[in-house]
């Protein structure tokens, strides 16, 4: 079987009885076995599932997937890539997992990720660095590093990641895949190990736009276990994918996308070609200035670190997870447990978060960032009165060398300038392939829309994808 087969094609094969569920599971399990030592993208493969086909009849019957390690899967370890949760067994399924199981999908394992989803390169996991299948000396992106690398190398047909500030779209872009950050509240956060609760969302990582729309439809919907989910029923994003752009479609190109100061020239080149292509397809192009965009990363930094520090205060060794031994006193146990259990980047983020929340600085940083978030949101809302969707490259640099930003994480995070603003304001964005660089490294384009515009985003992305075929490029050496 072609390892780069899509979910859609797999479903057709199943329907024609050319393959059965067990053969599919065996196929992917073998592939993980063969290639995972090279990529380190899967922390655990659920081999006990192999004889357990899922008898649920649904849109994903018999389709295996892996979930990022910060998503609870009943009875399985959920370590969030951290030592502090290395022995934590999830006592329930996250809502996104139970929805996938109800749709017939089969959980095949846990995907490696940066500790507590705090990273952009997959280098901050307690379970080792994940490599990019396109070039194993480079990062697959992060923090959903394992999920993206696994789909890219054809070790699973799809994966579920989480995004707090680019963590689905950026690795999707670095691995020539499709990744969605949905409207905040579209998908339940129940069972996602929290990083920054006001921006965390689960999203699918797939090979094609159709597959992504299919999985995202299943994940969507209100959940009584998450009061921040929107009062909307589950959606069917696949129903309007006809390969055509919408009538009177105006695409807004974010002006900063073309700034040679800070964006790789090869990315600008691919992106510019994509814009011309969309124009030929009938899109009306407008150039849109979003002045607040330059503050996007700073606003995101403050809000996400503040919420992250608060969420991670619960890890103290009392109820579950790692506990430091030989403490004579309770407070000593907390401190030792956290000292031993958290990695460096997580500690830096906790410290930053508590700094911006601390007395004397809260107004200058945290409260100010919340107000700035209002202005950022207003600027995007204004832009969406002028254009149907906005577009930009997903990331400002090509997949970089592992270790390139050791000691200079700030520079690495600045490359998230086009993804984090959407997370801060909770509006949807989809990244998809728009070409390869000279050294055959993937480049991604993203389409951004107003709240609840997923259907429209998928329609446009599908039309662009089908008309260009960049998704057909696969990494060499995984046949």
């Amino acid at each position, binding site marked *: 079987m072609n390892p780069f087969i899509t979910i859609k094609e797999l479903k057709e094969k199943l329907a024609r009885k050319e393959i059965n569920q067990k053969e599919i599971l065996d196929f992917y399990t073998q592939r993980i076995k063969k290639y995972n030592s090279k990529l380190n993208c899967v922390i655990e493969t659920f081999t006990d599932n192999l004889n357990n086909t899922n008898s649920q009849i649904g849109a994903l019957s018999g389709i295996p997937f892996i979930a990022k390690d910060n998503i609870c899967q009943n009875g399985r370890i959920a370590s969030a890539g951290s030592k502090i949760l290395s022995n934590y067994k999830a006592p329930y399924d996250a809502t996104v997992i139970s929805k996938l199981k109800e749709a017939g999908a089969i959980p095949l394992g846990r995907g490696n990720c940066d500790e507590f989803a705090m990273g952009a390169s997959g280098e901050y996991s307690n379970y080792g660095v994940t490599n990019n299948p396109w070039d194993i000396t480079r990062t697959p992106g992060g923090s959903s590093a394992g999920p993206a690398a696994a789909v890219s190398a054809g070790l699973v047909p799809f994966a579920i990641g989480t995004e707090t500030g680019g963590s689905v779209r950026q690795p999707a872009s670095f691995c020539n895949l499709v990744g969605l950050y949905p409207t905040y509240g579209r998908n339940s956060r129940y069972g996602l190990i929290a990083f920054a609760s006001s921006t965390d969302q689960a999203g699918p990582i797939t090979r094609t736009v159709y597959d992504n729309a299919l999985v995202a439809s299943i994940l969507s919907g209100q959940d009584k276990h998450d009061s921040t989910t929107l009062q909307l029923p589950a959606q069917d994003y696949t129903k309007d994918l006809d390969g055509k752009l919408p009538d009177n479609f105006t695409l807004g190109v974010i002006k900063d996308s073309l700034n040679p100061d800070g964006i790789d020239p090869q990315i600008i080149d691919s992106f510019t070609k994509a814009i011309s292509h969309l124009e030929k397809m009938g899109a009306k192009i407008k150039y849109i200035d979003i002045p607040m965009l330059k*503050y996007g990363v700073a606003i995101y930094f403050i809000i996400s670190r503040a919420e992250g520090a608060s969420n991670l205060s619960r890890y103290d060794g009392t109820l579950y997870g790692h506990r430091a031994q030989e403490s004579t006193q309770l407070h000593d146990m907390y401190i030792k447990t956290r000292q031993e259990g958290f990695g460096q980047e997580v500690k830096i983020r*906790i410290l*930053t978060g508590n*700094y911006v929340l601390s007395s004397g600085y809260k107004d200058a940083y945290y409260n100010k960032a919340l107000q700035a978030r209002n202005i950022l949101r207003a600027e995007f809302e204004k832009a969406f009165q002028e254009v149907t969707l906005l577009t930009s490259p997903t990331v400002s640099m090509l997949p970089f060398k592992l270790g390139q930003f050791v000691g200079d994480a700030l520079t690495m995070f600045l490359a998230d300038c086009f993804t984090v603003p959407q997370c801060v304001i909770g509006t949807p964005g989809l990244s998809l392939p728009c070409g390869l660089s000279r050294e055959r490294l993937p480049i991604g384009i993203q389409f951004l829309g107003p709240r609840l515009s997923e259907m429209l985003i998928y329609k446009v992305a599908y039309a662009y994808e089908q008309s260009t075929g960049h998704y057909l490029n696969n990494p060499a050496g995984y046949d």
Partner: protein
Amino acid sequence: MKEFNKEELLKIAKLSALKLSEDEIETFVSQLRNVVNYITQIQEIHIAQEAQEVRNINITREDTVTKTNYKEIISQAPQKQLNYFTVPKILDEK
């Protein structure tokens, strides 16, 4: 605003229930200083009257008791006695 320094790092570490090694103190001071310098740019943003208010609404539900399998939860305790989580002593004997 003054530069982020070691004294501030130690204060924040205490608030964060983190004890830092000498090596960590050295690297973290410079890394946090970079981050603080970077995020300070948001001071330039002019906040108009209409953007000042941060609106969030509370969503509540009935507080109904549901059955939970507490044994599964307690089985994950790092240390336990019967159905209780145990921890080192909270108060000093002095």
